């Protein structure tokens, strides 16, 4: 029945209430839930980004404690048993590999489509309260075309949903190279003019690629072919205060990077 499916995919609004999210997430990570309650919560995690972020926050905080507690040594036979129970897909059967790749690509496609849908709604909401600070010679670009990628950047390790700025990446056109635009939140405008250094985290490997430093005010932030590729393959963008590899000490902002569909094509 459609109505049942609809209810399953759309969690009750109360689970988006920050107070309830926090309570459930903290209990899930630190407390003891019955298997039934935990299973219900894990289902909700798949469809409630607010809850998912709250769980991620508590998991990360509490994992720091587990990291420092004493280790135990496992018997060598444990890995042998794991090895036997996790058969690797045979190499050399190209058709099977292609099928697997196709299956994986389909899965990624659906995941990406879902994320893009959420992100598009999110972007529309953001545009209501975000004002562009960067005005460049190519500013009209944003009026003629939609961005291909967007990252909503929050203060690092902050899960309070305070988006400080968004980064929009526009694909190159016949006349202009690929370009990034940074737009700060009107609610929480930029507090200083320190240059930001941008990194992209690869969605498949987790490897970090250096994109570059923020250009002077008024200058366009053009991308090279490799940096465009790094952005298009990224799951997350990270802004640091210097050119050193991102670390706890120098990371200022981070946010998920999503590919956006063309709004003209998406329009009903």
């Amino acid at each position, binding site marked *: 029945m459609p109505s049942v499916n609809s209810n399953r995919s759309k969690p009750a609004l109360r689970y988006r209430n920050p107070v309830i999210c*926090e309570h459930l997430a903290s209990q899930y990570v630190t407390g003891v839930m019955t298997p039934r309650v935990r299973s219900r919560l894990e289902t909700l995690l798949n469809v409630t980004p607010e809850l998912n972020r709250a769980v991620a926050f508590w*998991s990360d905080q*509490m*994992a720091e404690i587990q990291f420092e507690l004493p*280790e135990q040594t496992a018997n060598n036979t444990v890995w042998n048993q794991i090895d036997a129970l996790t058969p690797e897909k045979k190499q050399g059967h190209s058709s099977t590999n292609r099928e697997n790749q196709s299956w994986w690509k389909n899965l990624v496609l659906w995941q990406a489509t879902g994320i893009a849908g959420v992100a598009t709604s999110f972007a529309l909401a953001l545009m209501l309260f975000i004002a562009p600070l960067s005005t460049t010679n190519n500013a009209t670009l944003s009026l003629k075309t939609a961005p291909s990628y967007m990252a909503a950047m929050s203060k690092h390790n902050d899960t309070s949903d305070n988006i400080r700025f968004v980064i929009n990446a526009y694909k190159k056109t016949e006349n202009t190279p690929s370009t990034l635009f940074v737009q700060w939140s009107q609610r929480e405008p930029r507090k200083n003019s320190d240059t930001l250094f941008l990194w992209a985290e690869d969605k*498949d490997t987790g490897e970090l690629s250096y994109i570059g430093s923020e250009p002077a005010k008024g200058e366009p932030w053009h991308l090279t072919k490799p940096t465009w590729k790094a952005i298009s393959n990224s799951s997350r963008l990270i802004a640091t205060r210097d050119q050193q590899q991102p670390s706890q000490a120098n990371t200022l902002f981070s946010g998920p990077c999503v590919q956006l569909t063309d709004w003209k094509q998406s329009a009903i």
Partner: protein
Amino acid sequence: MTQTSLDKSTMDDSLFQWNSEINRLLHQLKRKDKFALKTLYDETNGKLLGIIMRIIYDKHEAEECLQDVFVKVWEQADKYSGAGSAWGWLCVLTRNAALDRLRRLQAHPHISTDEDNGLLSSLFSEQDLNQQHSIKRCLSKLKEQPRQAILLSFIHGYSHGELSTQLDTPLGTIKAWVRRGLQELKLCLA
């Protein structure tokens, strides 16, 4: 900057690098990369077995649980959304697996107050208390009873009922300690 804060900064950086490596391995696992699974096992099995052993005090059962955890990681790596760190995700997965096994065994957590107190006090050093948003600094700011209740539940998997027995305190009081303690923690960490 003092030597102490330098040491702490170095440790944070090494933890950050280690976390990045675990993130990378988990992303590779989504493509069913067996070498990534072995590397992840080598990097984390000691820590994850430690988590399990603090809930299940039987080494044989704990090792079987560890085995289940890695099979689950192999099969469900694609469920890792990337919203938090891979290490945090692994910790939750492992702790839940240990609690499930404990329940199946119908065993109660080992209760040893002296041992627990020693472990809990080892968590707090002067360096950590100077870190503004450190979880340990925030825990140290809680009153002793809520802190103890939260940590015993988190580390040893004690239910509220078991905490009530262990701490000789009414169940309602235990629940209130945990709820308020977690609220204060969140405020401190924000």
